[in-house]
């Protein structure tokens, strides 16, 4: 177990390093640099002199050779310092910390919606003996997965805010402002959960041990919840890391559509002007979340599946 953990942590560090390096390379391959973007007058309307530009470049180290820039940034990052935003000079760590709470709110709400909605669809689809309902519920998730997030958001706003006037369309005030973003964010994710869970539930329900349970006289609901769901949850758990990644990616669109502050908005703004320290900080942070969630999934597995705990299944 200890050896396993060491290997996993080493792997996690590797993933984080790769995320840092790839984001660095991509950002530098993009044409232009943040200083040039600012100089084009995008910020305060007045073009800067070439001399001022050079001074700025020197200040952010952009005049150094690429490899030196990479080394310096990596060294700083290892000490938890991702530098300061080129746009406004704010410390990257502080900027992320500040943007995080609203994103965590909608992500958790979206996740809750995804699990409840996806789980319910999967359970009903595999439980019902009404053929058309089963087929409809089995088809629904693949439709929902393919809907664009921004379009779903706009449709929900149109319906619930403008026509029915039930929920606010923008902003982050009060719990009611959380509903539409969370649903928008959770819908495609929930559809994914429904797809995976329904598939594995219907597989599990064909297993001989389900026949054993039925032969005992156990009712269908109890079989579904007590025997099938726990076995079917194992494959569904595997996609959990992917689900969390989905939510982070979705927050970029959702926060823009609903004009909410958060990590997504910060990302959009930073990418727009090639604010390299901020973008890199966010990429590494997202990678860290991803790695942590997957590690957590691996640690939960043995709790749910006793066969892994005792090493019976390799």
């Amino acid at each position, binding site marked *: 177990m200890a050896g396993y953990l060491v290997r996993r942590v080493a792997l996690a560090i590797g993933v984080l390093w790769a995320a840092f390096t790839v984001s660095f390379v991509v950002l530098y391959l993009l044409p232009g640099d943040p200083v040039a973007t600012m100089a084009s007058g995008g910020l305060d309307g007045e073009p800067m002199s070439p001399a001022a530009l050079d001074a700025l470049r020197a200040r952010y180290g952009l005049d150094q050779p690429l490899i030196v820039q990479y080394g310096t940034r990596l060294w700083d990052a290892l000490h938890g310092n991702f530098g300061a935003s080129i746009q406004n000079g704010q410390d990257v760590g502080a900027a992320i910390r500040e943007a995080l709470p609203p994103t965590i709110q909608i992500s958790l709400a979206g996740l809750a919606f995804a699990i409840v909605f996806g789980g319910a669809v999967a359970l009903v689809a595999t439980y019902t003996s009404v053929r058309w309902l089963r087929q409809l519920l089995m088809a629904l998730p693949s439709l929902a997965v393919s809907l664009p997030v921004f379009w779903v958001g706009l449709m929900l706003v149109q319906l619930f805010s403008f026509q029915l006037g039930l929920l606010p369309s923008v902003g982050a005030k009060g719990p009611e402002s959380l509903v539409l973003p969370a649903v928008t964010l959770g819908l495609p994710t929930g559809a994914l959960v429904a797809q995976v869970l329904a598939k594995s539930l219907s597989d599990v329900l064909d*297993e*001989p*041990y389900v*026949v*054993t*349970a*039925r*032969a*005992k*006289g*156990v*009712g*269908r609901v*109890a079989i579904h919840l007590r*025997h099938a769901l*726990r*076995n079917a949850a194992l494959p569904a758990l595997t996609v959990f890391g992917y689900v969390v990644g989905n939510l982070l990616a979705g927050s970029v669109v959702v926060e823009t559509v609903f004009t909410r502050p958060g990590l997504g908005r910060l990302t959009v703004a930073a990418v727009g002007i090639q604010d390299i320290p901020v973008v890199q900080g966010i990429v590494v942070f997202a990678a860290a979340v991803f790695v942590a969630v997957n590690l957590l999934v691996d640690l939960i597995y043995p709790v*749910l*599946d*006793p*066969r892994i705990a*005792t*090493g*019976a*299944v*390799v």
Partner: protein
Amino acid sequence: MSEHASKSSAQSVAEPLLRVEGLDVSYRTTGGSLSAVRGASLTVAPGEVVAIVGESGSGKTTLAQAVIGLLPANGSVDGGSIRLARQQGPAEELAGLSEKAFRSIRGRRIGLIPQDPTVSLNPVQKIGAQVAEALRVHGLADRRRAPIDAVELLARAGLPEPQVRAGQYPHELSGGMRQRVLIAIAIAASPRLLIADEPTSALDATVQRRILDHIEHLTRESGTSVLLITHDLGVAADRADRILVMSGGRIVEDGPVAAILGSPSDPYTQTLIASAPGLRPPCADTRAPAPVSAHGPLVEVRNLVKDFPLPRVNGSRGVLRAVDEVSFTIHRGETLALVGESGSGKSTTARLVLRLADPTAGQVLFDGTDITTAKGSAWRALRRRAQLVYQNPYASLDPKFSVEEVVTEPLRAFQVGSAAEQRRRAADLVEKVALPVSVLARRPVELSGGQRQRVAIARALALSPDLVVCDEPVSALDVSVQSQVLDLLGELQAEAGLAYLFISHDLAVVRRVAHRVGVMRDGRLLELRPTEELFDAPGEDYTRELLAAIAGRRHSAQTLEAGTS
């Protein structure tokens, strides 16, 4: 005992526990409706053991599923009645009963012992909880009482250390132990009828015997009726009071065991009896005459050892000795059988002889040449002379190939002959294994299990090898098909002087085909002797145990006793 028996038979005239009349069951498939059971009628008296015997597809399992209301979703009862006697009052009609109403019958009034114990227990739930659930759903024990009663039931099912087992998960138990757990579940609510669907087919012979003994003990003791579903006429003959034979969805024969085996009226039953290896008199074998060894042995194995590393435990790495100092020879034209239970090392030995695995120590000589470390072209040359027929013909043929491609693949691999010559050779080969030439254009999925195994044999013969290793070549086949395939192997041997290394867990099959038999256990070759000698006077206790476990033996012994007294 006899008093009890006469009492129960008197009852059976008056009121059977189960009465099935004119039952029709069909499955909805994409190609329309498929009739699985046609007009089946049967009765089971209280305390009676009735066996339904038939080959795969005969409808025996479907019939049992209909009785306990566990037909697959696309199956339906189209007609007839299934009446189950109540403790008091008139019998109850089960055909057409709602799912909810069936719930109070399953487990409580009809128990089920399923087919494959290795997959029939919930892998993420503890043993004790799974047994306790059978009590809880019928309100026979409360939350506190159920776990205690569950341990008691496990003990009754013959599970050692039931208290410890109750706290374990299914994967921590052996197949035989898991079957005992399933028996505990089946008897938990004391049903008056037990359905045992091939309860031991997935288990080793000695375990099979102990489990069947225990089921018999439990049911006789409590006067429980048993509906035993089996493909094995030997098991039915040993265990049942009455045998029903099913074929093509119909019950073709119904009568007491002695009558069915002694004077079967239906031609299908006659075939079944003739091909049941355990029931067959030992003189009727398919062996070619024992070989005359003018040359040296074809294969010589000396002190073969194979170790497998085990997962690291507390830093130290153990090894599993799968094959332990095994030595034997095989002559041209001879069949040497290796028998043993799962894990005895017989298949590993076969792989070592073929050099599909590398031995840890020891030597393999093929036709006088040491091939223990043969590599490259020498290793490839061995492939031409030693071939393999696998256990499962459903998995060992590439489904994307036509039969012709399957059979000619070895020829193409060794570039033997032109394409036209290869085609001719393929036609010769399928003819040799008694298949029509038309199968060459077909794909394996279009063939039955027996036909596929013939194709696998044809492929093995393509390069005219000297040695064919047959790893459980008939275990996946129905008995009547088994018999045909064994006959074919015998004919091919007589014709071409082939040597067989025959791996099997089934002593009854081995007796028909082998000249010499080696008994393996825990990687060691316990004894290796001419077949008749081994069967008549086994030298080891373990061999005696294996022989005693052959299904059908008990019946033969009984009839023998009856004949002499």
